[in-house]
């Protein structure tokens, strides 16, 4: 049943499918597509495959390595990059979708356009920025960055660490730190997890092994004497040149900090993880319809049951289309491959597809269970202080944002123009979510109702040198540079 002769993509296309991102979703999509006889180009801006979840060191690790448990899964998924139907291109930054079925790619001497019949965006997620006084001090590290250090380089982010935030990733980071011998001073989880456990249990049982794993983490915290403070959050970090402590406090039911019951903890590092945001930059550039789902990563694409977006020929899977974890991402990647095979050459495997959809349904149950468990007010939990930097690239403080609002900036777009917030190297990823939350609070609206500035290519910074290599037809230059130009397209 499963095809072996992969359809050599014809009519000028480089492959049947172009996949952006070689994390669990992208790798699974490429694997399933290959099994269905479809060719794919797998583009990833990391030097090695696996994405954030399967991040692994370039060097060999010892068998007793505390983070080695993922190694088996790694081997099977990472093998996808060696399949003959898969053209795996690491170090390739996709920076725009300049036309239907076309990706603009910066990858050194190979930079240019990739054409495919279907595009699958599996772009993953990044840490939600959560400004608080002291969050820019050296020693304050995001949960994702701490995982990078641990999983990718085996570097400890600190010796005595406070972990604060919200969601399952926080427990995972804390457990990893403990396993690596780091002293975890305290964990502040914004949600009241334990009292909700019984209600969420029926959903969580659908992935009982993950539930067991979480139970083992909680046991490890208990054994190590780590306070697991629920409905608590971080108030501020202390320290002159770098972090020397964290002040944690309980959350009031209205989502503000209860400063009267604050507790201080000495530490040399603070890991902060208030959930993840879906990387939807390419979807914004493609003008895909997005909707606001704060628990799933902010703005996420509108998708059908096969994970098609509203842009013809563009699919979105995995955390980049709504946070759901690695298992869900993998299932989505595979289902999308089947949907593409069906549209492309009526070559699907109905039984396999219905199995996959059933698996997806079970994992999604678990995801909904986690969502119930970890629902919590979004940061910031109260005023962040006028001196606190919101946009790190352009060094814009909360006070400067307030001044711009008082000065007549009506919208997030105008605040950006007035302050240069979001115009630096991170292209707004680490500050626009905070700005939109602040504007929403002032207008008593949902952040989903706050219009973001127009997305502008490139989706990620690219060296101008990467735009010099593709061979192009000669330009259409004006005969007289002063007269009106003849437009492209």
């Amino acid at each position, binding site marked *: 049943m499963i095809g072996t002769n992969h359809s050599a993509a014809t009519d000028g296309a480089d492959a049947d499918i172009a996949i952006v991102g070689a994390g669990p979703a992208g790798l699974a999509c490429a694997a399933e597509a290959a099994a269905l006889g479809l060719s794919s180009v797998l583009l990833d801006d990391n030097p090695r495959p696996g994405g954030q979840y399967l991040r692994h060191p370039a060097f060999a690790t010892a068998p007793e390595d505390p983070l080695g448990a993922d190694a088996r899964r790694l081997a099977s998924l990472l093998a996808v990059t060696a399949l003959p139907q898969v053209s795996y291109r690491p170090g390739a930054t996709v920076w*725009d979708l300049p036309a239907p079925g076309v990706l603009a790619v910066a990858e050194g001497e190979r930079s240019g356009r990739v054409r495919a019949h279907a595009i699958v965006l599996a772009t993953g997620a990044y840490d939600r920025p959560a400004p608080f006084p002291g969050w820019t001090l050296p020693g304050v590290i995001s949960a994702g960055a701490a995982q990078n250090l641990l999983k990718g380089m085996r570097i400890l982010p600190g010796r005595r660490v406070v972990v604060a935030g919200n969601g399952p990733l926080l427990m995972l980071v804390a457990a990893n730190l403990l396993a690596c011998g780091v002293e975890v001073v305290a964990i502040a989880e914004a949600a009241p997890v334990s009292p909700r456990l019984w209600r969420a249990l029926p959903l969580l049982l659908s992935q009982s092994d993950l539930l067991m794993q979480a139970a083992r983490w909680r046991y490890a915290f208990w054994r190590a004497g780590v306070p697991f403070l629920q409905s608590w959050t971080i108030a501020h970090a202390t320290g002159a040149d770098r972090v020397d402590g964290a002040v944690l406090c309980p959350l009031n039911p209205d989502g503000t900090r209860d400063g009267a019951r604050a507790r201080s903890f000495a530490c040399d590092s603070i890991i902060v993880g208030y959930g993840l945001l879906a990387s939807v930059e390419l979807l914004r550039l493609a003008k895909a319809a997005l909707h606001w789902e704060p628990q799933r990563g902010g703005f996420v694409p509108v998708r059908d049951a096969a994970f098609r977006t509203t842009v013809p020929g563009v699919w979105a899977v995995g955390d980049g289309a709504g946070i759901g974890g690695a298992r869900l991402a993998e299932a989505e990647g595979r289902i999308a491959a089947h949907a593409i095979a069906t549209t492309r050459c009526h070559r699907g495997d109905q039984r396999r597809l219905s199995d996959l959809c059933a698996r997806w349904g079970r994992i999604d149950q678990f995801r909904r269970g986690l969502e119930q468990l970890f629902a919590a007010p979004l940061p910031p939990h109260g005023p962040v202080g006028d001196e606190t930097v919101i946009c790190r690239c352009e060094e814009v403080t909360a006070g400067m944002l307030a001044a711009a609002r008082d000065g007549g900036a009506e919208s997030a777009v105008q605040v950006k123009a007035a302050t240069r917030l979001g115009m630096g190297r991170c292209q707004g990823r680490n500050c626009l979510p905070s700005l939109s939350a602040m504007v929403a609070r002032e207008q008593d609206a949902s952040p989903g109702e706050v219009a973001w500035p127009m997305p502008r290519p490139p989706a990620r*910074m690219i*060296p*101008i040198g990467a735009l010099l290599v593709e061979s*192009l037809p000669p330009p259409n*230059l004006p005969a*007289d540079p*002063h007269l009106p*130009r003849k437009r492209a397209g």
Partner: protein
Amino acid sequence: MPPPDPVPAETDVAVIGGGVVGLFAALFLQRAGRSVAVLERAAIWSDASGANAGTIAVQNKRHEVVPLTRLAIRLWPTLKAEYGIDTAYSRPGGLRVAASETGVARLRRDAEKQAGAGLEIEWLEGNRLRDCAPWLGPSVRAATLCPEDGQASPLVTGIALSAALRQRGVALCTHAGVHQIARNGAQFVLDTPRGPLRAGAILIAAGVWSADVAALLGARLPLAVDVNMLSATEPAPALLDRVVTHADGVLSLKQYGNGTCLIGGGWQGQGDVSTGTRALDYENLLHNMRAAVSVVPGLAQVQLLRSWAGFEAVAPDSLPLFGCLPGLGEAYIVAGARGAYSQGPALGAEVARLMLAGETELDLTAFAPGRFAA
């Protein structure tokens, strides 16, 4: 946050368009004691004035507009002291480069004409050119240096100018696009989605929408629409210390104090004025970057941060439409000049003079909007 300015019932002058020309005209009209309301279809400074390259150059302009541009170059540095308007203006001098035989010929021809119009222009080639600008690439054969060329930040200027106008009591009415204009004796009655306005005089300075507004009065203006692309880099180490323009018209390049390089030159994107949508053109963007790197090779190592496209209204001869709309009473227009951002303060000051006293400092009769009437 203050609420947006309401549309007043009556005003001396209604300025249609909240861009560089309209706002400077409003500034000078207000200073002469007139009440002014600016009617802007979207947000203030949101179209060409906010999306342009901020080049304040004279030597890349047609010789017919050299006097007007020089008047503007006299005004730009005074705005801070006289009106408290920060523009981030600086005058590092400009190099207009040529890389081809035809480019060199054009450069020479233009330099002669501009010198004839009173401009100080220095011809540079060979060692003198490399000494003056060692950062230029080998493709550059010759350049002219004009000490009057400079740059301003459209971003900074727009914010400061709006604030100055608000402070002076000029109503900046956003989301108030004019969709009907009736004449009631000598008065104009303008309909906007935010209420009607009676005005003694009107100034159309609505960029690419100017022709649509003029059509409400039955006037036909032959404005073409360019969709110019622009790109900004990450803050980079010092790469160039002059404003660069190109004799083949394919490049404008400058570096701001924070290190950001702005790369433009009129490479065309795609866009549709009726829907307001505009997009980059992939190949033209690459051509634009290649033109930039061939002139300043150091740019190849710099990261591109963002690219965008903005509309520009251009008359068939690229010269401004400036003056009274014939037969329509106190209705004026300023639109259609290529690179009008440079001339913004001068166009604003001159049209204010025209509206107030019926005369201008410079002879601008050649730019009469009726010149295309067959």
